[in-house]
């Protein structure tokens, strides 16, 4: 329940936001002490976008990657961030979000099933072109717009692929794990940036499958 507190202290506002993560995290954003605070808040707000998009997935069938990526940038602009779609940043990153001197970038990819080669393109763009290993700019994400069935399988196979590549090419994707709260949909790892430092990357799955006619048939076929 969203009710603004009577006393508008920083503490009261932050408490209100913590209880209503679907709301703009305005006080958290404005009082972010560290890059880590900025990133934590950004991912809370990205999660809100994921949920909104998933709720409206029936309206988004067949949309383009550019449209989805620009919608992410728009979402962050509406929250008060400087956010751009296709901004030049060592090349053109799909999404760039900035606040003060903090920066986060994202590459969004549409997949219909397991497609590690296509996701690798997005990942490699982040690690070899747009991303940095330096503080205040070393967080990025591959946004996996999964329009096919079984998003956890898509994300799980992607995680397996990263593990395999890292075994051959140490530092490509270190410390891979999926947080318990979002198991099957989010994978974290770190890339040892050739320019120095580490780029921390999350792969975030959006569950956008929607085909009410095919689902019962698929279930029957499985039975």
């Amino acid at each position, binding site marked *: *329940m969203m009710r603004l507190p009577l006393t508008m202290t920083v503490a009261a506002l932050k408490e209100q936001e913590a209880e209503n993560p679907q*709301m703009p995290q*305005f006080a958290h954003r404005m*009082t972010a002490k560290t890059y880590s605070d900025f990133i934590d808040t950004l991912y809370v707000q990205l999660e809100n976008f994921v949920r909104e998009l998933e709720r409206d997935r029936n309206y988004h069938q067949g949309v383009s990657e550019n449209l989805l990526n620009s919608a992410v940038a728009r979402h962050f602009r509406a929250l008060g961030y400087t956010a751009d779609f296709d901004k030049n940043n060592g090349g053109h990153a799909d999404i760039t979000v900035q606040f003060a001197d903090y920066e986060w970038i994202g590459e969004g990819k549409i997949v219909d099933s397991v497609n590690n080669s296509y996701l690798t393109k997005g990942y490699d763009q982040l690690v070899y072109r747009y991303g940095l290993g330096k503080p205040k700019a070393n967080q990025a994400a591959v946004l996996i717009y999964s329009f096919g069935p079984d998003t956890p399988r898509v994300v799980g196979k992607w995680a397996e692929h990263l593990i395999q590549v890292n075994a051959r090419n140490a530092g490509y994707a270190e410390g891979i794990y999926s947080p318990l709260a979002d198991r099957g949909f989010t994978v974290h790892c770190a890339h040892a940036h050739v320019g120095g430092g580490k780029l921390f990357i999350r792969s975030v799955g959006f569950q956008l499958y929607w085909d009410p006619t095919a689902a019962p048939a698929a279930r029957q076929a499985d039975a």
Partner: protein
Amino acid sequence: MNQSVVIERFRNFPSEDFDEGDPVRPAISKIIDFLVAANPQNVRHLSFGMIQKVAGLKDSEEDHRTLYRTVSYITGERTQLLELVFEYVMDDFSHILDEEEEADYKATGSFSDPRTGVEVPDSAKHIHIYFKASRAVLQK
């Protein structure tokens, strides 16, 4: 950039960033009208309640959401229509943080009582957020 150009940009941004029927859009428009017409002295200490009233929003849960989304947007880096004012309030004493104090508070999360120099425990519970028209809006 003169004020009319800046204001025109402010008016255009919401149409790019919000859907046509989004209640944030008319709320921002009303706030801009108010800020442009107001005496600069009267827009240096605006509360949530004042912004709510100016934006024509009611005291309902839905309008509180709109208010919060509106405030989040117009204090953002893209529009910078309003700037934050941090005011320390302890009993009958109040003190508006200057730029240096504000930067220090944001960087550390701690604040020292200007009367004593002693760090205030749980300072976030004693620092209130208000708003003021940004410099861009006030350059009349």
